[in-house]
């Protein structure tokens, strides 16, 4: 984020040299003489100005005191798209000393908010964009989108708040179950959360008393782990783990090391990984012969079918016969048999990990599934996934075979019963019962499951079914 103008830095009132908070503050007059301070803003960014003539100005984090290095956005007083007049307060910034209203020097429209409320940005970083005309709002928004993905302290674009692995496997009754004419009733906190996570409140089905939408409904829809409600104590394991994690990170940094704070997505991953430690898991591996599957793949590949779709379909069909593996244990008190088989597939995207969900993988045919998958991957890359498209999984599939990995084990995402880790299919020498040697393609499949609900025999039986389907793949195309 280039500090393309120094205009605000040169504003005289910023040389607030006597404003040190110290012993002296009890003697000297108040350092804060006026809360309404400088306006900031700056002329259009250089590189933009070269190519486009439109005036989109960046709103910068102003330096409100001589000691300020970063500021927190307390609140935006204007919303995106709102008209601004010169001199109006636009945003409230918290410095190390006070909250100050920041004014605009220009007329225009608040086109985009780059740094959201409660977030922090270094002095000089763009926190919002100001468009001169209404027509330029769209353009500014696009610019903001590219900015926020690169920003150090980004505003949360919807996919970024997701977890690598779905946080809670709500069986996605989402839009389907809304019962008609009833008006939506949402609690104050639910509304706040929906706004914060940009979730359309109308698309959520309420599960609270009298069918109202509660905060946990919104959290489920947004794919974030429920915030710790006052009464339930957090699992001590995770607390201990956090403490441990902080402890191990404390040794001094090596020279020239750098610390990069997590992006929102990385934080979500980290949080989920810590959370996963509270689930007792175990792992079962199974070698699967893939000759038939490979042959089928060659046949259907020209029709746009991918290996992911084949594996998801096979897993879906196997799960249909072993519902316990598709179940989840949400509160530690019982099984939740999910009504749909939704296969989440882990995908690495730039700087993160996301799990788009193939819903009803057992029911959709292979071609539809492949089509759906392409669509999801496209959306994931452009960060356009809707919450239900990445948090409604009931079973996760992770495939590292394309890298030549022969076997690995996966961490069970909180809220799901099992995750399957698929290795590469490799030619292997096998001996049959008559003592004949042959070379067959084999891949190692390793499933991690929640032992509170899935037991060894369940998992073994499921893997057997899965192997059978893969080894006789004709049923996949039916």
């Amino acid at each position, binding site marked *: 984020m280039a500090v393309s103008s120094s205009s605000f830095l040169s504003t005289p009132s910023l040389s607030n040299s006597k404003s040190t908070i110290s012993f002296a503050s*009890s003697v000297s007059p*108040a350092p804060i*003489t006026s809360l309404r301070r400088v306006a900031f803003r700056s002329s259009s960014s250089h590189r933009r100005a070269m190519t486009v003539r439109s005036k989109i100005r960046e709103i910068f984090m102003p330096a409100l005191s001589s000691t300020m290095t970063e500021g927190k956005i307390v609140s935006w007083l204007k919303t995106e798209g709102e008209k601004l007049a010169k001199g109006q307060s636009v945003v409230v910034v918290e410095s190390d000393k006070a909250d100050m209203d920041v004014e605009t020097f220009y007329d225009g429209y608040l086109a985009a908010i780059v740094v959201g409320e409660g977030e922090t940005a270094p002095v000089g970083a763009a926190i919002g964009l100001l468009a001169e005309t209404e027509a330029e709002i769209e353009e500014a928004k696009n610019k903001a989108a590219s900015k926020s993905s690169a920003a150090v302290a980004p505003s949360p674009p919807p996919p970024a708040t997701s977890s690598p692995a779905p946080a809670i496997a709500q069986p996605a009754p989402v839009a389907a179950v809304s019962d008609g004419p009833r008006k939506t009733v949402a*609690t*104050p906190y639910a509304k706040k959360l929906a706004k914060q996570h940009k979730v359309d409140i109308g698309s959520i089905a309420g599960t609270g008393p009298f069918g109202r939408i509660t*905060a946990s409904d919104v959290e489920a829809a947004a794919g974030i782990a429920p915030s710790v409600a006052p009464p339930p*104590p*957090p699992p001590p394991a995770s607390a201990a783990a956090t403490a441990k994690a902080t402890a191990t990170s404390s040794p001094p940094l090596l020279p020239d090391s750098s610390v990069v704070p997590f992006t929102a997505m990385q934080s979500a991953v980290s949080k989920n990984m810590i959370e996963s430690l509270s689930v007792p898991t175990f792992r079962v591996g199974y070698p699967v012969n893939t000759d038939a599957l490979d042959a089928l793949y060659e046949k259907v590949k020209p029709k746009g079918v991918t290996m992911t779709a084949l594996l998801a379909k096979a897993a879906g069909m196997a799960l249909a016969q072993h519902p316990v593996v598709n179940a989840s244990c949400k509160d530690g008190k019982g099984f939740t048999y999910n009504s749909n088989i939704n296969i989440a597939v882990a995908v690495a995207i730039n700087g993160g990990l996301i799990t788009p969900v193939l819903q009803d993988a057992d029911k959709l045919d292979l071609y539809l599934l492949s089509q759906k998958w392409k669509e999801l991957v496209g959306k994931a890359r452009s960060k356009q996934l809707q919450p239900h498209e990445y948090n409604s999984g009931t079973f996760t599939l992770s495939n590292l075979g394309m890298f030549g990995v022969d076997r690995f084990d996966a961490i069970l995402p909180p809220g799901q019963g099992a995750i399957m880790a698929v290795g590469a299919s490799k030619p292997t020498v096998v001996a049959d019962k008559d003592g004949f040697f042959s070379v067959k393609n084999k891949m190692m499949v390793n499933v991690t499951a929640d032992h509170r609900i899935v037991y060894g025999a369940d998992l073994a039986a499921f893997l057997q079914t899965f192997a059978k389907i893969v080894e006789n793949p004709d049923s996949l195309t039916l």
Partner: protein
Amino acid sequence: MQSAFSLSFSQSSLTLPNRPLCSSNASPRNLRFCGLRREAFGFSPSKQLNSCRFQVKSRRIEVSAAAGGNGAPSNKSFDYDLVIIGAGVGGHGAALHAVEKGLKTAIIEGDVVGGTCVNRGCVPSKALLAVSGRMRELQNEHHMKSFGLQVSAAGYDRQGVADHASNLATKIRNNLTNSMKALGVDLLTGFGSVLGPQKVKYGKDNIITAKDIIIATGSVPFVPKGIEVDGKTVITSDHALKLESVPDWIAIVGSGYIGLEFSDVYTALGSEVTFIEALDQLMPGFDPEISKLAQRVLINPRKIDYHTGVFASKITPAKDGRPVMIELIDAKTKEPKDTLEVDAALIATGRAPFTNGLGLENINVATQRGFIPVDERMRVIDGNGKLVPNLYCIGDANGKLMLAHAASAQGISVVEQVTGRDHVLKHLSIPAACFTHPEISMVGLTEPQAREKAEKEGFKVSIAKTSFKANTKALAENEGEGLAKMIYRPDNGEILGVHIFGLHAADLIHEASNAIALGTRIQDIKLAVHAHPTLSEVVDELFKAAKVESPASTTPQSVKATV
């Protein structure tokens, strides 16, 4: 005598020779609040006398005579010198002061001693707010972490919280009762009413006469029509203070002091809150700048939403498996706007005077919207606009300033008058506080009020402001959120109003309210010293930030003496 002495400071010239020496006496005893007066009386007279080494002897005798009790009426033709109807904080303050002044005093109470403040108001609500403050702190992981503290999830036991509130009320009620008994105030039980001039009936048919009568019957929660209060799901502050339940979602009708304080309690205990406010913005009545900041801190980040500019035209309690239904209409057009479905509704739309059955018709007094009309000396005005002799009304029943400590101050002012010293209470010097987290407090005029007055009277107004972020103690507590603001006259240094939002604001306001009450000017008070580091430096910063044209009036010597 003690109080008379301290009161005299507010008007007397600054040349009283013994003033600096007896400065401990200058504490505003007349404004003492609730049950705390008992302790004050129990210990202070002799102590204060001792501290005033140059006290005239005759004074000491008078004081001890007064403290000795509630003797015979000074005028033999009456049963009492003073009868007070209502033993709330106002009546209690008046009774104690009356005994001090040597009046034979009786107080009539038809319900429980302590009135609204002690039993159903300020006192139990402070107990709940003390809990909510701690819950808030313990739940704020970020706040705890910034101290390096680790706390596992905080929880609470509803009944335990409720018991704390009721125990506190009981304790303060007993203190209040004992303080009056110890002094020999006659506590008469039964509903009191005025039979005629200088004649009062209480209970069934007990009739007493008194030289002077004070009506101090207080108020009850005001419930607008259309609202059905069932005490379970649609409640007033009376019920809410018992904390019989903590609903998941509660609508609070009215965003004044009561509503705000309860929103603080309920959200800390896990409820979500919806405010319904008839005016166009939340927290009307506060200085706009303060309410703007307060909204940023007390409303926006919490689980609260709101509807402004609407009336709750109809509220039906939860029954037959339906939630509480609230019909909203536009405050101006009266068009239906919305229907809310919540788990409970708290009606905090203000308080209505409790003046029914007082026998006011016997003395030709007509109430105005229930309030008893009085003049600036709290003397009751009858239907013809004439003063009713020997009859006074203080506190919520006259509606001048519906605060417990205002009632007490008014009562003391009345006692001053009936004992022969004219006294007019300066209402603008009475502070008010809202005990949210953080607290809000104020005294005097708001900025718009001051600007309007300045326009009319042709003087200039200046504003001084300081932030809690500049205060060391506040930062040590990790509570830098807050603002203090003073409105003053730059020409003569008069303080017009002070508004504080921040940690312990309610305790910080008194330096300003005392300055206003005593007429102390900024150029003088700014030379006073504050301990460092304390929150009181916030107010000090205000005084020091002010730019006053007049020079300090105190001489260097006397400043030294004060130190």
